[in-house]
Structures are given as C-alpha cells and as structure tokens.
C-alpha cells in the first residue's frame, strides 16, 4: 500500500484536468452565447434603423 499516493495522484490529476477543461469550455460557451445574442440584437437594430433612414 506504500505507493497508493502515486495511484491517487495519477487519477486525481486526470480528473481535475478533464473537469477543469470541460468547465472552462462550458463557461466559454455561455459567454459566446451571450455575445452571439447581443451581436444578433445589434445587427437587427442596425438593419431596422438603416431601413428607416433610407
């Protein structure tokens, strides 16, 4: 049992990395979705305002 620390470290490391990666991805995804919505909104706004102007 003396080397159980290495075993624990190996599995813990893999799990922390994988979960960390997925969490960062989900965070980014959330940010991008907000960005996308705001961009779409401004694009629509631009469309309607330029339509009114001409």
């Amino acid at each position, binding site marked *: 049992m003396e080397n159980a620390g*290495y075993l624990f470290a*190996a599995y813990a490391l893999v799990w922390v990395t*994988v979960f960390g990666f997925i969490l960062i*991805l*989900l965070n980014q995804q959330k940010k991008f979705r907000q*960005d996308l919505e705001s961009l779409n909104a401004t694009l629509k706004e631009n469309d309607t305002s330029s339509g009114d102007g001409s």
Partner: protein
Amino acid sequence: MNTSHKTKLGLLALSAALMIWAHYMVFVYVPTEAVMGIVQRIFYVMVPVAWLAMFSTFVLFIASIAYLKTRKSSWDAVAYSAAEIGLLFTTLAIVVGMLWAKPIWGVWWTWEPRLTTTLVLWLILLACLMVRKVANDPSRGSIFAAVVGIVAFIDVPIIGMSTTLWRGIHPGGIIFEGGLAPPMLQTLLVSLAAFTVLYVLMMVLRVTVKNNEITIEKLKTLR
C-alpha cells in the same frame, strides 16, 4: 458539426456510466498485480490517456487534410480542437507516465522510447497550436496549423522507431508482452472505452465552442 443538445446529454450519460463502471473495475474488481503492487493500477489510466493522445493526433491529421482540401471552417474547428485536446492528453500521458516511473523505476523521468516519443509529440502539437497565433492572418494560420498537423501524425511512427532503436525494449514492454491476465485485460478494455467516449464528448463540446467563436468573429467583421 453542431451536435444537438440531446446528443451531448446522451454522450455525457454514456461516458459517466462507463466511467463509473471502469472505476469500479480498476479499484474493486481487478486483482492487485503481484510484483508492482497497488501502483500498477495507474496502468489502467495511463494506457487510455496515451491512446487518446495518439488518437487525437490521428483526428488532427484527418481534419487537417479535409481542411486543406475543402477549406471549410468546420474542419478547421475540428483540427483545432483535436490539437488542443491532443495536447491536453499528451501532457497527462507524460505526467501520469512520470507518476508511474517514480515508484517502478525510482526516477521521475527516463528517456524511455514511449515517454520520449510522447514528449516530442507534445512539442510538435504545441508548435501546431502556436503557429496559428503567429501567422500573418488567421486564415493562413489555419492552413499552417493543418500543414503542421499532417507532419505531426506522419512523424510519430518515425520518432517511435528511432527512440526504440535508441533505448531498446523497456521493462514495461516485457511485463505486458507476456499477455495480461483476463481480468486485467477486461478492466483495460472498459477503461479504454470509457475514456474514448469521454474524448468524443470533449471533442463535441470543443468543436461547438470553436464554431461559435468563428461565427462571432464573422459577425463582428460584419458590424
């Protein structure tokens, strides 16, 4: 390649179930190896992680060729994701390999063929990701990354050959060449399956995020 929410949830459920099964087998079911003791169980995570590093390089290779031929940004997104996740798994393979080498061989690092090959692959994947950032314009960066991606995959067997000839067959090879006991083989296979499904899930997520990023960049230039 915009996978629906349902598919993602399905993948998540499948990978979670397989992972739980794999961990049950690794920590409860499989007998402890006689010579190396409990630390031998690292093997069931080291092999899948190293396999995913290689598999990701293969995906990078295919996506790179497809991107050069079709110039579709979706293939570029796959190539980018494969390079990034490949780098993640090569890093894990190296570190887990070190955690294996320390108790077994008494050193953190040894210039053992497979470790050396993984290290060189890690450096090439790093270069593949870097070359995107330093290219004169982003579309060129994608092409350059694809070129490096193709070279990376083709180079791996040659690096493997040269490092093997350089160091000879390593002790680990001898241990496992004799064939694994059936329970150990079963555990390894379940673990491999679990990690491969996890890889697919990670790829799907990464590609979705990358595609969103590309769309946003396009919209920003429109504005």
